[in-house]
């Protein structure tokens, strides 16, 4: 009986610690600045949606959202196609000098290096190509990061699929690439989905490169736009809170929808 009580209390405590900050964000976003700073209420006494309306009418949050969706979609889609092909080659072929293993290890090493290390040269590269503050510059950067992740993740999924099925297809007259496309790829679909989901999460949330590579609402992504807004409005807590809700809502909703597939990516494959 006492362990049951301890269990209930711990559960409630953990839920409170996680959810209270989120409650406070949402609650603040529904108050006016006057209520926030002068009355210090614990819940919105006069709820208002003005803060949200202002974000879209005055602060270009529509553009940020569009930019984020476009950049995330293309960089994940391209990385998934290129990454799956590369991962298949590494998982299935034996190349001279064990090149496929060396390439795999090399991509993993690239993944371990913190991205901040190449921030300056990527900035200089995009500057010289005239791709600063553009969708293309961000898409190219995120695609490259996503490829290292996709190859590494998809490789383990492909290894779990028996070779016999492809061989059978090839005996029946399929080409090697045909067997990959018609047999292996559909079988790896759950893995492909898990990979895509995690890539979407990381790309949508990325801030550092968006900070260095974009400067106007033309290309600024959601996290970048949110951070800029906060830099400008140090005491406009209501707008800040609303921006936080809008910034987090799409990705949290998405994550809860697909949570089953999320765990493997989040834990870098430490958990299967």
């Amino acid at each position, binding site marked *: 009986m006492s362990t049951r009580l301890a269990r209930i209390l711990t559960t409630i405590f953990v839920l409170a610690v996680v959810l209270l900050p989120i409650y406070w964000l949402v609650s603040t976003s529904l108050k006016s600045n006057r209520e926030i700073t002068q009355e210090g209420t614990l819940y919105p006494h006069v709820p208002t949606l003005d803060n949200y309306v202002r974000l879209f009418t005055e602060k270009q949050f529509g553009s940020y959202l569009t930019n984020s969706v476009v950049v995330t979609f293309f960089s994940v889609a391209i990385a998934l196609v290129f990454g799956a092909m590369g991962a298949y080659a590494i998982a299935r072929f034996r190349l001279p000098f064990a090149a496929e293993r060396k*390439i795999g290890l090399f991509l993993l090493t*690239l993944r371990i290096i*913190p991205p*901040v290390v190449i921030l300056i040269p990527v900035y200089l590269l995009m500057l010289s190509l005239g791709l600063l503050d553009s969708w293309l510059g961000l898409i190219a950067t995120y695609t*490259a990061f996503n490829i290292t992740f996709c190859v590494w993740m998809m490789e383990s999924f492909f290894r779990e699929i028996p070779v016999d099925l492809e061989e059978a297809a090839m005996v029946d007259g399929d080409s090697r690439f045909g067997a990959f496309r018609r047999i292996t790829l559909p079988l790896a679909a759950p893995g492909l989905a898990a990979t895509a989901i995690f890539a979407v999460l990381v790309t949508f949330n990325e801030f550092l490169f968006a900070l260095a590579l974009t400067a106007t609402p033309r290309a600024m992504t959601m996290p970048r736009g949110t951070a800029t807004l906060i830099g400008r409005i140090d005491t406009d807590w209501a707008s800040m809170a609303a921006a936080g809700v809008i910034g987090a809502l799409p990705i*949290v909703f998405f994550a809860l929808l697909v949570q089953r597939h999320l765990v493997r990516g989040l*834990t870098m494959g*430490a958990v299967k």
Partner: protein
Amino acid sequence: MQNGMQARKYRLQGAGLDLALPYLMLAPGLTVVLGVLVYPLWDGLRASTRAYRYGSPVADVGFHNYVQLWSDAQFLNSLWVTVKFVALSVSIEAVLGFALALFCLREFRGIRLLRTVLIIPMVITPVVVAILFRLIYASDAGMLTALSVAMGGGGVQILGNPLNAFIGLVVLDVWEWTPLMFLILLAGLQSLPHEPFEAARVDGAGSWRVFADLTFPMMRPVLAIAIVLRTIDAFGTFDQVFVLTRGGPGEATRLISIYGYDTAFKFQQTGYAAALFVTIGLVVLALAFSAIRLLRRIDAS
């Protein structure tokens, strides 16, 4: 029949286009990676040996930038702050995550809700996590102040005080990443074999003995993996600090990534910043590889 066998063998070994297939499949991805990651990496190494003025290289200075780092008080301070931040956050996360995982090992009502809710902190945009905590810490509009006032106290100062701001940053990181530790460790606990635990129960071992003699030793490799993953990740922490404190007050929360960013983009010392980032990269790689060797040793013993 003979002919058929021959054809089959021929096909499986690959012929014509099939021979080039692995290269064709690797080419698109590798091209992008070489262009956008590897070339910049090389370019960064080159930049780190140069002196810049107004964003253009003016002189080759060899290893001068690297040497200068170690007599730069601001760099050394940011390194120290980073090490403190990583060590403190990751160890608290490991302890809390482990405790929570042990707690959730038995199925009970509410556990699914708990797991779902625990996903939220780690998927929220890091920039927004920082907003969450600014709204908690703010001396005028913050949750802590509102609670303190509601209980009859006064305003609470967090981000204006060096020590409190640093602790506030650690609390943010613990809130955001303990769930990850929890997930990894829970999966580890669930994959442990049952027999030793049943034997221990038959022998009448107490729960502390079971933990110290069975659970903990068996969990060591998973725990090590979880700690290494978090440590590598925590070393690169940037977004949260940028929005929460921008490194302040003073240099109290100025992590190495923030210092590097400012050196490059605020002070325009491109070459020096490049050397700083190459150094961080080498430190993290060294950490990762020594961790892999350590794990192999644990596996072998």
